[in-house]
């Protein structure tokens, strides 16, 4: 079973030849909106949307041009410029270029497609914000950076995009920076991500030192299936980077706080696209550093399984609708990571789940945004209830997203998640059954969310007047829910996505996974999801939901506190770090500088005492001259006698 990835071919001309336009459009948009700031206030949002749509059009055209090529010729490299030149007479150390292949174009379509919808939605959502223009500038910046991340043909370009999305995420989480909580959350997200970046950076050092290149094109030939301690180390370092960006254990703590940002940001960055960059990194490096059965791949799967459970447990206890969804995002990315730990068959399901998740989670986040929009920005689900009558479109689209995420048969999530679970049970039964358990918990917490929000009786504040959102917000919801309905089946049935991705991620034509829902894990998943949903109905649908949070058991508190992740970080890193900082500052001021100043004071004091010799009496001076002369003469006589 030879699972070779296809050769990357230089490409000129056509839409692929100008695929850099995909990045250029939103970048120019961000540039114009930021530089000509106030002058663009009136039409800035339209420019932002137009640039994102233009990028989408390029992506679609490039996609069609790509599938027009032969299956094995679908990996096209476009050279842009020499980034870090080499010594005279040597090839460049890093060449900047784009790689258009099935994997990257799938991401590009998701980013620009869902991105454009969220841009459109934001016109309505941010209509009353005086800094709407800046918001669109940041969104455009994000789209450009994310596209660079997935399109770059080398790790350095990927890293630039990687940090670029981190920056956009920082700016957007802290968009309402006058709220201290938002400012802190933004900083936390960036710093935690930087811990992951440390891994990615060192990983790049090792790759370059070992293989002499950072370009995906040359890496294939260099690695050539070699597996040893070095590739394992690289894999683990890259995984650390992926954990940071994708909010996987142990770097998960920032994602829940990141919900301080405006809701479209949570939908685009913290659900649909940016947080899946870690999965992209693993799949992109898969053929080199995470081959099926390697230790690094197993580590990926373990991290995924652990996070999918952690995220699901957190999701069960949150009353804040956005934080509940954030826990769910963590959990779903955990599924993707789990899938990405099992080679090409797993990759197809992981990417498939990533795409469908992009749709249904964006759908639900935007739905949550729509609810908040109608409820005076209230996020506490205990203050919702019975909203389905007041927001019918929001309810229906949200409900479709809900059915998709819990894996209701024939909806998107059903195919992709079930695929991951089947693959996992096949390779690593323990992890696979944990994923089944996770699916059951998903059934519980998502149902809880739907029942608390849209069913039951009204628990609103007195000044709430729930109403349906404007068309500019509901149309994107409808389009996204269409994706949540049918996309999964299209991608998974008949191995469509597997065959499409095969040239980029490897795998054999015969190896296409056969989708069979009637297996033990498949049926067990459905049963557990049903149990979870029914349990949720009993507690939050049928019973009255208290509008004040009850105390809850030990386990509930555990989940409400995000599994004590923050407490752990605080006691392990933050407090010792603060102490270390204080000690260092003290040492610098009193130790090093004290030594220097002490030396200076010593010299000053000595000379202060010495100058007392200058009495001002001429005879004292004369005497000292005489003594000096006598000593000198004596010394000369003494020396002369030797």
């Amino acid at each position, binding site marked *: 079973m030879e699972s070779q990835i296809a050769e990357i071919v230089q490409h000129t001309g056509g839409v692929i030849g100008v695929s850099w336009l995909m990045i250029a459009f939103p970048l120019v948009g961000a540039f114009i909106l930021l530089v000509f700031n106030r002058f663009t206030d009136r039409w800035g949002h339209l420019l932002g949307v137009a640039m994102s749509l233009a990028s989408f059009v390029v992506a679609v055209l490039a996609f069609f041009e790509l599938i027009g090529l032969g299956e094995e010729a679908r990996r096209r490299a476009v050279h842009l410029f020499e980034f870090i030149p080499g010594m005279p007479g040597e090839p460049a150390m890093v060449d900047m270029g784009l790689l258009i292949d099935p994997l990257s174009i799938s991401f590009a379509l998701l980013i620009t497609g869902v991105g454009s919808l969220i841009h459109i939605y934001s016109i309505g959502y941010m209509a009353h914000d005086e800094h709407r223009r800046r918001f669109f500038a940041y969104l455009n910046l994000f789209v450009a950076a994310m596209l660079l991340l997935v399109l770059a043909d080398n790790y350095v370009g990927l890293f630039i995009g990687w940090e670029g999305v981190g920056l956009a995420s920082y700016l957007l989480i802290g968009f309402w920076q006058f709220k201290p909580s938002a400012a802190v959350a933004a900083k936390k997200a960036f710093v935690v991500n930087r811990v992951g970046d440390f891994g990615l950076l060192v990983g790049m050092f090792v790759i370059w030192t070992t293989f002499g290149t950072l370009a995906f094109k040359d890496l294939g030939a260099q690695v050539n299936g070699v597996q040893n301690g070095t590739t394992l180390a690289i894999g683990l370092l890259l995984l650390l980077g992926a954990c940071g960006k994708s909010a996987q254990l142990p770097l998960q703590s920032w994602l829940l706080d990141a919900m301080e940002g405006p809701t479209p940001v949570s939908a685009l960055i913290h659900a649909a696209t940016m947080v899946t960059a870690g999965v992209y990194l693993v799949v992109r490096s898969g053929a080199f550093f995470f081959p099926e059965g390697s230790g690094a791949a197993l580590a990926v799967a373990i991290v995924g399984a652990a996070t999918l459970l952690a995220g699901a447990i957190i999701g069960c206890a949150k009353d804040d609708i956005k934080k509940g969804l954030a826990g769910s995002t963590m959990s779903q990315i955990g599924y993707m990571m789990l899938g990405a730990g099992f080679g090409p068959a797993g990759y197809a399901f992981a990417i498939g789940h990533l795409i469908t998740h992009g749709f249904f989670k964006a759908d639900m986040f935007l739905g949550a945004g729509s609810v908040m929009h109608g409820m005076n920005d209230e996020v506490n689900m205990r203050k919702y209830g019975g909203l389905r009558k007041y927001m019918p479109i929001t309810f229906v689209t949200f409900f479709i997203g809900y059915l998709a995420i819990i894996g209701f048969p024939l909806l998107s999530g059903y195919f992709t998640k079930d695929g991951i679970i089947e693959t996992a049970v096949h390779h690593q039964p323990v992890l696979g059954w944990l994923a089944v358990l996770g699916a059951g918990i998903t059934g519980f917490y998502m149902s809880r969310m739907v029942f608390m929000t849209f069913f039951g009786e009204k628990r609103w504040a007195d000044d709430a007047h729930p109403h349906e959102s404007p068309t500019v917000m509901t149309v994107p919801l409808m389009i996204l829910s269409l994706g949540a309905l049918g996309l999964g089946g299209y991608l998974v049935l008949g191995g469509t996505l597997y065959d499409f991705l095969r040239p980029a991620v490897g795998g054999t034509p015969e190896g296409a996974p056969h989708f069979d829902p009637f297996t033990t894990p498949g049926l067990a998943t459905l049963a557990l999801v049903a149990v979870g949903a029914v349990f949720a109905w009993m507690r939050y649908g049928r019973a009255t939901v208290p509008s004040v949070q009850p105390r809850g058991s030990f386990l509930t508190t555990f989940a409400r506190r995000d599994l004590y992740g923050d407490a752990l970080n605080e006691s392990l890193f933050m407090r010792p770090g603060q102490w270390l900082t204080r000690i260092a500052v003290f040492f610098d001021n009193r130790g090093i500088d004290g030594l220097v100043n002490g030396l200076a004071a010593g010299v000053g004091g000595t000379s202060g005492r010495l100058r007392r010799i*200058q009495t*001002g009496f001429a005879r004292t001076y004369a*005497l000292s001259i005489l003594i000096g002369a006598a000593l000198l003469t004596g010394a000369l006589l003494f020396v002369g006698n030797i």
Partner: protein
Amino acid sequence: MTTHYLVLSGLLFAIGAIGVLVRRNAIVVFMCVELMLNACNLAFVTFSRQVGNLEGQIIAFFVMVVAAAEVVVGLAIIVTIFRTRRSASVDDANLLKY
């Protein structure tokens, strides 16, 4: 034979040096300095004669010239100090100190 001259020179120098150290009157101190210079001159001339060349005598002339110049400057300073402080004591002129 030159020993006597050198002893005399040494005595004169010692008298001058002690005078500089113990006397307070600027004029006396000044004359003691001159005494020391002349003691040196005596030594130079003595050695010149003993060795038999003229260099010592030439240096003696230089010393005389320097002494004359010193008298000019030194006396002027002493007169000025006396005018401002109404005193010729060197101990009164002790402003240049720490």
